[in-house]
């Protein structure tokens, strides 16, 4: 089983590398440093939200409210700014509010034992609704350039975008946590069998609760970054992002039933989707038509391993029968 999934991880990583190489050779302007910056900025929200989402899905749960949390903190950021708060106060405040949104999810799911799919569909509507209540259909756009410029800028005006540091640091932290610490192992144990994990002494409820808090906090941070990138605080910022994130995580080889998957696979999944979208846009193919590829890849990522294992199973059974005869 582990071997089969390891192979899906490597397939997706190889596929991603192939797409990157082919696109830089065949698509004009794909390999330029300017386009690289754009791509990293497009990656930013999906990849950051995908980090805690991977943890949550590995434990067999899901969080569909992330994009709405992002919208809520974006709205609040605009409102706070209009109230005259400084950006230095607003940013930690927004991350905190995101974490509080996660606390509510975590409480409903682990405290009351409600199914995470239903709960986070509810808070998806709730948080987006609150974002609309805060800011209506207006926008706040007059954020200081020292911040908006940092998000869209590059290190020493070179080829490396500033936000790439943020992505690398957070990806490293989450990667080490998941793959090299007891906490990470306990997440896989919970996802494989929550009851067995409980009897093995893992605090299942508490762990899941904190995952939702972290997920909310990261979504809050991404709300801030999104607002600064487009210098626009709007209630509908990031609408629909939750589906793109879940798609990328599953494409990266994480099982929706929990217990399986790896962070490198997820990172490859995010890069693959973003690079494809970017390359097709440069080729003047509508980004919406790309949805066909995204959807097909998502289904194939689960379908192919199933088909392969069932073919392999048939083949082994036939071999056994032959050796018996």
């Amino acid at each position, binding site marked *: 089983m582990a071997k089969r999934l390891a192979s899906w991880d490597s397939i997706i990583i190889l596929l991603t590398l192939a797409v990157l190489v082919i696109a830089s050779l065949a698509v004009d302007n794909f390999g330029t440093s300017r386009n690289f910056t754009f791509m990293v900025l497009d990656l930013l929200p999906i990849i950051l939200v995908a980090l805690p989402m991977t943890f949550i899905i590995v434990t067999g749960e899901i969080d569909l409210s992330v994009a709405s949390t992002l919208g809520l903190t974006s709205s609040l950021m605009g409102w706070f700014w209009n109230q005259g708060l400084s950006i230095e106060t607003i940013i930690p405040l927004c991350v905190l509010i995101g974490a509080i949104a996660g606390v509510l999810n975590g409480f*409903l799911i682990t405290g009351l034992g409600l199914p995470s799919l*239903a*709960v986070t569909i509810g808070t998806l*509507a*709730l948080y*987006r609704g609150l974002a609309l209540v805060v800011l209506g259909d207006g926008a706040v756009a007059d954020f200081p350039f020292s911040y908006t410029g940092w998000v869209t800028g590059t290190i020493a005006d070179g080829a490396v975008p500033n936000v790439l540091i943020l992505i690398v640091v957070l990806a490293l932290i989450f990667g080490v946590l998941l793959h090299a610490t007891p906490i990470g192992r306990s997440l896989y144990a919970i996802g494989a069998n929550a009851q067995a994990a409980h009897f093995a002494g893992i605090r299942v409820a508490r762990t899941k609760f904190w995952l939702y808090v972290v997920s909310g906090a990261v979504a809050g941070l991404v709300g801030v970054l999104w607002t600064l990138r487009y210098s626009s605080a709007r209630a509908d910022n990031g609408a629909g992002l939750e589906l793109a994130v879940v*798609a990328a995580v599953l494409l990266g080889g994480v099982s*929706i039933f929990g217990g399986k998957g790896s962070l490198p696979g997820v990172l490859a999944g995010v890069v693959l989707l973003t690079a494809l979208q970017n390359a097709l846009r440069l080729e003047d193919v509508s980004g*919406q038509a790309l949805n066909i590829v995204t959807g097909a890849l998502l*289904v194939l990522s689960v379908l192919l391993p199933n088909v392969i294992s069932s073919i392999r199973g048939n083949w082994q059974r036939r071999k056994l029968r032959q050796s018996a005869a």
Partner: protein
Amino acid sequence: MTPTAMKVPPRFNIMKTRELGIVLALAALVLYTTINNPRFLSGQSIRDNLLNTAILAVMATGQAVVVITRNIDLSVGSVLGISAFAVATMMSDHPGLPMIVAILVGLAVGAAAGLLNGVLVRYGKVPALVVTLGTLYMYRGITYSWAGGSQVNADELPPHFLNFANANLLGVPWLVLIALVVVGATSLVMRNYRVGRELYAMGSSPQAAELAGIKVARNLLGAFILSGALAGLAGVLFAARFGTVDASAGNGYELNVVAAVVVGGVAVFGGSGTVWGAGLGALLLTVISSALAVLDINQFWQQAIVGALIILAICADRLVAVRIARSLRKKDSHG
């Protein structure tokens, strides 16, 4: 569970149904709004509310059946889009076609989309959440690459098609009649017919259902085809009602539909809830949004209220489940 036990419909007791809560909430909401503004109960206002509910209720019916089998169909908004665009294009190219052809084509397009979902879930062994999230993207992408930036406008559509949304039979709009028939017939089948009880059994325990000899594959495909076909029908109704159809028709509807089903008392883990409850859920969500307008409350509160309602509905569900488990345990210890 013996085969004879399966044929016996559950005893109908209005006081014990989960739907009672929705009916009460609906009644309280209508009462409060009417006291504040008597026009809320005028013929026109009732008509508008029912017309706005119709499309959501049709989709919620199919979704409820799928959710009862412990699956989910997130692709319904995209299926509505592809069916609405296909039918609108067909009607503008061939204005002479009768309405029934438009409806049949919509149903067929939706059923084909649902069949693909069902096949992938059953034979590909891919979880329904993953399959329908994938086809949500695929069907929408197909509509976009077909339509490009173009749209079908009301002046390109034949009048009999557009009039369908406003036409009446004995004062009841066709749209509402269709929704009533869909909700009513599906509720009846789910409650009183063998296949309906089998779908509940599959949702309660998929493994037990298989061992009990239920044709799980056939029923599951049927559930997804029904959900797809009804989303396709909703696409026809959408095109007739709004007249203007582009590639984004029905974008994001899946969440409203799932919300209606959950608020209507269908548990996401399958095996319980009713189709008419989901229909009531759709009605409640629609009435809330029109009541907000009448009460002059900021429209932006609507979505937040819907979210709070969903959470409330799941909490209530949980409470009922805990109480039932406790009473069962008590019976066991006495018996």
